[in-house]
């Protein structure tokens, strides 16, 4: 077997983080303490400067290992996906591989030119025109001028900005900006391409185009690609193998389907009861006449698309509250509400709760219309016609997986809410005859 294109051995990365003790928690402390702390902190900074060390804000310094003893190899032409929660170390790993920052320990050997795409439009200058920015961005990504000139027309065509080539990009719409930025990056020709979550931009049409281009790069041109994304559908379709990072260590490496299934199963709030009492409330919920306590799933987790969902919402009242309505909502991870259920949706009664105490309300969704994906759960209580008694946005992450009736084509694309409705096909006269004969 030829030597691997990327080999990573025992790589670790440490960061120093500063903390501020007490003060922030208790607000006020006495002046003498505050001065003492400031002096100690200043003295430490002076020592740091004298020794040429990094200055860390705060009065205690802690080590934080973003990566701990990572090791893996990537063969030529392999497309490797990297998944993990925020803070798992994915971006740090990519930054080390792109040589933006260096590891604290370990060794990496790269055989081939590396280009990394950690952000779309790095170095774009708003005052410069689209044409000028193509050259600027290309050079930043490591393309030579000749290379850019050769691909210039292709880039412009891909970005669909022919008419605005000589307009400063600060006057571009955000869609045009992103298209141009991706177009430049997509025409890089390195031997190793490192991509971090950059496909989650632009409109759906353009995303599809980007994915197609990524697929070209990896499959047809046979390049080695490292790909980080939170979109499991995209990872599954682009990458045969996947690494799952958790708290800076590799938790699992294997085929995409297998790793992602396990990753999804672990990633979300799998607790059958989600406690809500300690969750911070938004500011406009200032009174505590009614507090949502918990949501208890009566169905098995993870929830399945197309299957019934039953759950119980527990809450507590401190004083009598009249005309209470409870609602539950599912949003996508960008925060857009997709689906809402209210107790008084069709004019059902809003009960008056005349005694303080603990209550609960059950709900049942006959067939969950959410396509397989991760959603944020919002939950709230109102009195009367909309006065917020309690509200919790994105208090839990809920995974919806495919149910037995879920068609395969919606598993990969984030399909949002899918509802049944009545359809009637209209065939032409000729066709109808054919169908009758057939």
């Amino acid at each position, binding site marked *: 077997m030829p030597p691997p294109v990327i080999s990573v051995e025992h790589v670790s990365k440490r960061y120093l983080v500063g903390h501020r003790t007490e003060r922030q928690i208790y607000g006020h402390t006495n002046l003498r303490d505050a001065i003492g702390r400031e002096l100690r902190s200043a003295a430490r900074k002076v020592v740091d400067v004298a020794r040429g060390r990094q200055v860390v804000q705060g009065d205690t310094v802690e080590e934080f290992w973003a990566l701990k003893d990572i090791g893996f190899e990537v063969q030529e032409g392999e497309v490797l996906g990297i998944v993990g929660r925020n803070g798992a170390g994915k971006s740090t790993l990519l930054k080390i591989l792109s040589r933006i*920052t260096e590891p604290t320990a370990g060794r990496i050997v790269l055989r081939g030119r590396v280009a990394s795409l950690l952000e779309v439009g790095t170095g774009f*200058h708003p*005052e410069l025109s689209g044409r000028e920015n193509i050259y600027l961005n290309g050079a930043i990504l490591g393309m030579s001028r000749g290379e850019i000139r050769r691909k210039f027309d292709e880039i412009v065509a891909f970005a669909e900005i022919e008419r605005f080539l000589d307009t400063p990009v600060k006057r571009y719409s955000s869609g045009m900006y992103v298209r141009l930025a991706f177009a430049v990056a997509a025409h890089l020709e390195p031997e190793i391409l490192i991509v971090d979550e950059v496909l989650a931009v632009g409109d759906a049409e353009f995303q599809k185009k980007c994915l197609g281009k990524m697929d070209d790069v990896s499959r047809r041109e046979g390049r080695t690609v490292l790909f980080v994304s939170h979109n499991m559908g995209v990872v599954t379709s682009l990458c045969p193998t996947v690494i799952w990072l958790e708290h800076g260590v590799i938790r699992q490496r294997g085929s995409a389907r297998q790793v992602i299934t396990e990753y999804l199963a672990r990633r979300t709030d799998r607790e059958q009861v989600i406690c809500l009492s300690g969750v911070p409330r938004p500011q406009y919920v200032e009174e505590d006449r009614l507090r949502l306590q918990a949501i208890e799933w009566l169905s098995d987790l993870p929830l399945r698309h197309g299957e019934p969902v039953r759950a119980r919402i527990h809450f507590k009242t401190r004083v009598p509250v009249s005309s209470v309505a409870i609602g539950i909502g599912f949003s996508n991870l960008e925060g857009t509400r997709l689906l809402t259920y209210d107790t008084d949706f069709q004019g059902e009664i809003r009960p008056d709760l005349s005694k303080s105490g603990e209550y609960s309300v059950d709900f049942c969704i006959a067939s969950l219309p959410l396509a397989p994906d991760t959603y944020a759960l919002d939950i709230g209580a109102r009195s009367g016609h909309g006065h917020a008694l309690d509200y919790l946005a994105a208090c839990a992450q809920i995974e919806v997986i495919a149910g037995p009736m879920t068609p395969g084509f919606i598993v990969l694309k984030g399909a949002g809410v899918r509802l049944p409705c009545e359809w009637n096909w209209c065939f032409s006269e000729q066709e109808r005859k054919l169908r009758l004969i057939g």
Partner: protein
Amino acid sequence: MSYLVVIEPGQHERNYWRDLWRYRELFYVLAWRDLAVRYKQTVIGAAWALIRPFLTMVIFTVIFGRVAKLPSDGTAPYALLVFAGMLPWTFFSSGLGDASNSLIGNANLISKVYFPRLIVPTSTLVVAFADLLIAFAILAALMGWYRFAPSWQILVLPVFIMFAFLASVGPALWVAALNVKYRDFRVVVPFMVQLGLYVSPVGFSSNVVPAHWRLVYSLNPMVGVIDGFRWCILGGQSHLYLPGLIASLAVTLFFLWFGIHRFRRTEKSFADMI
């Protein structure tokens, strides 16, 4: 496979200079960007590059020449003496100022893309160099006004422009690297530059410095650069003090080594600290 990179903590020295060469186009492009952007959305544009040194020259000529009545070099007009000193000083001070903020100004690049970081501060010096070229136009006009013809020494000027460049690069790299770690240098640099204007012989001839202090005075690298510029531009009217020139050159070379050394030592952690 032609290209092999080994990443280990504390050393990827081997490819450094080759990478620097490979990324030379980025150097041109960043310099071009800074130039192209410099005077966008200004009313009088590049004229600023003319007005600033001209006004400073007028003020210095009045204060040092008329009010303090300091002597010029030989028979050279005082305004020319001042302007010949202003040329390299403006280059040095604006170069140092721009370069010290350059890494922070390009933080988005540094935290998202790899390239030899040396490119960023050095490419900003190109902008200062462009201003220097524009300022030569004023010099030519001034010489015409005073009917002062240059002599053969003017041909040596490119050597001293190079000297000015080297004298700026060292401190610029050092300060740029420090600025990433300790933002205090944002305040320190303009202050040092302001002081340096009076410590260096910009508004006066270095001949006014007592002879036995002259060598010590020349430890300021800009003394050698400014004296050199004057010698070239004012021709025979200004005398070159050779030991001082050598002292300035030695200090310049030391700072060049020191600046590159410090910069390379810290550049790998820029992305973590910026």
